[in-house]
């Protein structure tokens, strides 16, 4: 992030903290679509969950805006970081609720097994189980469609290190996905 963009984000941050809604519109219009796309990706297309992730992320960003420091990173990265935590919590909470309802239905019907999670839900659960740096690497690769060199530039690492990171991230996702589907 350049010095100019840092300074701009600092001004926007201060204006929003002072209650300037017009300043907030700058960020809201610029990053809403990106955040919504990320939420859909994290919830694997579960629209109700994705909408909830978007809403909770924006509200949380407003509440925690005083802790945003432009010198430590861009607003987009800070916002996506909040969204990742919100999505992880919501997906897990949704899964627990679904599991509880399945147990109730099993008791009532006395069936032998619980229904396996759907493919969408399995992806969301597997992403929620991944460590942050693996999730970040997969997001850059599959959601944002960046090449290895671009990811290396963003993460300030060598392309070889990024390739290795992606391999480990894919492996971790595959294991988490299989684990979720077998539960």
């Amino acid at each position, binding site marked *: 992030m350049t010095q100019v963009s840092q300074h701009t984000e600092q001004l926007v941050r201060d204006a*929003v*903290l*002072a*209650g*300037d*809604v017009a300043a*907030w519109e700058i960020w*809201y219009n610029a990053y*809403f*679509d990106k955040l*919504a*796309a990320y939420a*859909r*990706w994290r919830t*694997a*297309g579960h*629209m109700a969950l*994705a*909408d909830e992730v*978007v*809403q909770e992320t*924006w*509200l949380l960003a*407003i*509440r925690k*805006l*005083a802790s945003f420091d432009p010198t430590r990173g861009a607003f987009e990265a800070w916002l996506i970081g909040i969204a990742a935590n919100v999505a992880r919590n919501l997906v897990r909470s949704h899964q627990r609720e679904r599991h509880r309802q399945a147990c109730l239905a099993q008791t009532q019907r006395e069936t032998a097994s619980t229904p396996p999670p759907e*493919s969408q839900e399995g*992806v969301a659960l597997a992403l929620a189980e991944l460590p942050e740096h693996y999730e970040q690497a*997969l997001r850059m*690769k*599959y*959601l944002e*469609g960046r090449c290895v060199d671009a990811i290396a530039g963003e993460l300030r690492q060598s392309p070889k290190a990024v*390739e290795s990171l992606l*391999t480990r991230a*894919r492996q971790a*996702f*595959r294991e988490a*996905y299989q684990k979720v589907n077998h539960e």
Partner: protein
Amino acid sequence: MNEDHDDLSALLAPVPAPTAGDQQQALRPRLELAIRSRARWRACSRAGLAVVIFLMGVGLGWFLRTPADVPTLQEQVRMETVFVPIPVPLESPVDESPAEAVAKTPGELELQAELSSQPEQAARLYRLAGDGYLERLDYVQANRCYRLSLHFAGPAGLELHPQDSWLLTSLKNSLYLEKTHASQTQTGH
């Protein structure tokens, strides 16, 4: 690597946005309300913090005030002077008029006596002048003034009084003896 990539591309591909529904516009009023209420809350918090800091400063100042500001027990006790009248006997052989009291020196008293036209007053002033000279151990002048006092006082001035000085008493005695001797001598002749 390519196999992995293709394998996960289907699962991790971006999900297209739904055509219906405009969440961005629907969420906007709520976020604007949150921004304004958050700003008001921050302003109130800052004002409250300022008030708290001010009150803490006032409290600290009151707590750390100098001992001079604290009223001590010593200062709280009012010092009152009670005047107790103690009668002191002053030895005054004769009554002094205001004019005589002003003229304190024997010379001045003697001058007033010379200027006086009344014998009683002249006798009294000469006597006072004699007392003054006697206090100054000027026996010659005291003797002269006492004699003049007895001269103007007449026979009644020979009566002895406890307030009389030793010189005046001695003069009165000698004059009394002289008069007695003179009268006896005249009777004898």
